[in-house]
């Protein structure tokens, strides 16, 4: 086992301890149902933010349509469980496959565009997905899909989140991930160095879309009803805020961003206008004073004391 794997193991153990602590507090009723819902939302939002970060932060392709893929995952998932009585895991996998396939089909032509144009095109595509769903009577149309069984619980979202984090982390640290980062840094230079830019852009977009689909499936099975209005471009902006706040190109940042944004939304739930004004000002001030976000490209495992601690743990526990 090399040291990277050992460090992964240490993070996994940390994750399990965190899971045990929160699950314990939930079963002991220390965490009430309101915060339990918000913890689940934080996990779903972490999946959304990390997968969007793969597209926006690591590959540098500014996508504004992430909620559209979430909608696909959510609707495919609920059709699978309600109309075909499949288990949740099958619903999540189907949702991921459909969202990923759509991401691939959409990504192939649109990722030729750059910067602002790509942003608007993905925003438009996200809206088209929503409007199309709104016009499909089979899934309830504009009124939404009712009678979804409550299958999501903390265990599901936490382990799916953990899986997402490890998947994206390993992808980013692989040669594919380095190709994506090269595209972000300079697309023309990357192409000149022999990176197949289209392939890697589409790859990142497809993976991001697939994980958004999983998040959508988890999200849908938390509530009795989902409607196309849960997936407008405003929610895409919401995920973007998480990514930008945390740092485009940092997984730790996305986790922090998802946590902070969900927490603030929950705390200010009764003042929706104030919440949005705070978001807006935070976004503008962030761009002025810290455009790289809270973490920039840094990961929590890069901070010296934590790195040391992890090495120590993995040194003791490994092999």
């Amino acid at each position: 086992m090399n040291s990277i794997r050992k460090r992964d193991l240490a993070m996994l153990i940390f994750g399990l301890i965190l899971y045990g602590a929160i699950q314990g507090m939930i079963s002991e009723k220390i965490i009430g149902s309101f915060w339990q819902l918000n913890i689940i939302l934080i996990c779903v939002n972490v999946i959304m933010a990390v997968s969007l970060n793969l597209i926006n932060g690591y590959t540098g392709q500014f996508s504004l349509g992430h909620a559209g893929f979430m909608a696909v995952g959510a609707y495919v998932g609920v059709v699978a469980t309600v109309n075909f009585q499949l288990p949740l895991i099958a619903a999540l996998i189907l949702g991921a496959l459909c969202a990923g396939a759509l991401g691939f089909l959409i990504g192939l032509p649109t990722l030729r565009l750059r910067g602002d144009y790509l942003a608007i095109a993905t925003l438009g595509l996200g809206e088209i997905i929503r409007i199309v769903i709104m016009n499909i009577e089979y899934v309830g149309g504009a009124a939404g899909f009712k009678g979804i069984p409550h299958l999501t619980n903390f265990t599901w979202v936490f382990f799916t989140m953990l899986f997402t984090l490890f998947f994206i982390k390993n992808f980013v640290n692989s040669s594919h991930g380095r190709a994506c980062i090269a595209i972000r840094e300079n697309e023309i230079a990357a192409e000149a160095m022999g990176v197949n830019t289209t392939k890697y852009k589409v790859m990142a977009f497809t993976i991001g879309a697939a994980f958004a689909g999983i998040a959508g499936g988890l999200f849908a099975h938390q509530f009795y009803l989902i409607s196309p209005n849960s997936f407008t471009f405003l929610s895409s902006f919401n995920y973007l805020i998480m990514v930008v706040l945390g740092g485009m190109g940092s997984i730790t940042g996305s986790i922090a961003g998802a946590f902070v944004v969900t927490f603030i939304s929950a705390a200010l739930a009764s003042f929706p206008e104030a919440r949005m004004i705070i978001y807006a000002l935070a976004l503008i001030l962030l761009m002025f004073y810290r455009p790289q976000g809270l973490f920039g490209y840094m990961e929590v495992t890069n901070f010296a004391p934590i790195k040391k601690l992890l090495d120590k743990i993995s040194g003791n526990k490994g092999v």
Partner: protein
Amino acid sequence: MDFFHQLIQQLINGVSLGSIYALIALGYTMIYGIIKLINFAHGDIYMVGAYLGFFGVTAAGLPILPALLISMFVTGCLGMVVEKLAYKPLRHAPRISILITAIGVSFFLEYTGMYFVTPTPRTFPDVMGNISFDVAGFIINGQQVLIFAITIILMALLTYIVQKTKLGKAMRAASFDTETAQLMGVDSDKVISMTFFIGSSLAAAAGVLVGVYYNTIDPLMGIMPGLKAFVAAVLGGIGILPGAVVGGIILGVIEALVAGFLSSTFRDAAAFAILILVLLVKPSGLFGKNTNEKV
């Protein structure tokens, strides 16, 4: 004959809606042309214009034209202030930073607006009365006449400013190449400021006209027209003024036809579908020239 009659009627509606998109798209395209920024807040500037016009007509009791002019002036100033406070400090920052700032400004205007005027939609007073003209069996109402008249006047004025005045020359120079224009003595900050003023006041005019046309305004009314006006600007070729007008009118007509003959729920989808088609087939737009990318 009935189909033909309905087609012409939808075309009239489409052109009036399209004129409004054209007015907003002009501002988009001017601002994009000069600082290469998709001003996401432009749609919300238009919303502010609509509210100022509304308060001008209701609270101040002004007739529609003075209310329109005041709204245009104040909103123009707001556009300049937004540029000074939010975009100018980021002039040399990466494009993505400015784009995110623009999204932030857009949220700020929407929800500050909502805070002050409440989210409830307001009914715009009927300023035109119940006038309508019957032209060979086709109905054109007073609102539509007002929209056509104001749009044509404003476009003529804009063409005059851009083509014949010193400011217009400076604007054209700065949008062609900001740095070179600066070397030739163009005060680019001032030109950018004036571009925001003109663009925002055109958006305000569109906002007031929409209020008159649809009779209802609300704080989030700017989101969709803002995005669609961007589609119009891209369709015509971004940075090109006649392109924005043609793009706006084409978009309005297509939307009216989709709403009239298919289903009104597909209206918004049609606009975005056009955008994606244009971007894939001819990203420089109808009037644009292809440019090569330089390393």
